[in-house]
């Protein structure tokens, strides 16, 4: 049969198919309900990470296409995806190394790309709009 979601602790009191009356039955139902909530956490993680990776993928492909002055970014989708898959497969040997790097290495490493470079871009855009001659004879 199926394994009980609450584990071995509640096996003596009530089996999954068995009906339990009274307060004990309510607590038992609550425990089963709470145990099955981790599907929601997994689903949320899946959806949000999918959105994040989609945005990164699109910006990578579009940026490379604009950098190479291509007419369309479509030919780059498949090769970039294959390169990402091949590199991500041997980026971390184990799961714990990924957790360690995300905790201790990545914040300092990402400060360059997520704080310094966007700030420089923002300041340069502000300076360009400051010195741009809007509505002049050059346009």
């Amino acid at each position: 049969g199926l394994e009980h979601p609450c584990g071995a602790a509640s096996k003596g009191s009530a089996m999954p198919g068995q009906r339990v009356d009274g307060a004990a039955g309510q607590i038992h139902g609550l425990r089963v309900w709470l145990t099955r909530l981790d599907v929601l956490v997994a689903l949320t993680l899946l959806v949000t990470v999918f959105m994040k990776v989609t945005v990164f993928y699109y910006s990578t492909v579009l940026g490379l296409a604009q950098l190479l002055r291509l007419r369309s970014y479509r030919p780059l989708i498949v090769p970039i995806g294959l390169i990402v898959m091949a590199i991500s497969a041997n980026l971390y040997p184990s799961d714990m190394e990924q957790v360690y790097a995300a905790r201790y290495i990545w914040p300092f490493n990402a400060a360059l790309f997520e704080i310094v470079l966007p700030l420089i871009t923002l300041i340069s855009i502000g300076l360009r709009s400051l010195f741009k001659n809007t509505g002049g004879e050059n346009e």
Partner: protein
Amino acid sequence: MIVFLFAAFAALTMLEAPGLIKKKQWRELTAYSVLMLLAIVISVFYLKHIPIPNPVKNTQYYVKDMFEYLFGFSYD
């Protein structure tokens, strides 16, 4: 495994390259070929267990050294 890899890459190229040739987009075709070759090389290296330069492993050392140099203590 290598045979399946090359078969997959050949199928993808046969799906995409004729359209680019027909539309005479030589610049796109060049970019596609170069990136596809890079993907093939990295995939073969991964299948043959040949170590390729790992950005995570290399940045760990300079991040740790930089932290120790800037703040005077190591967090590890």
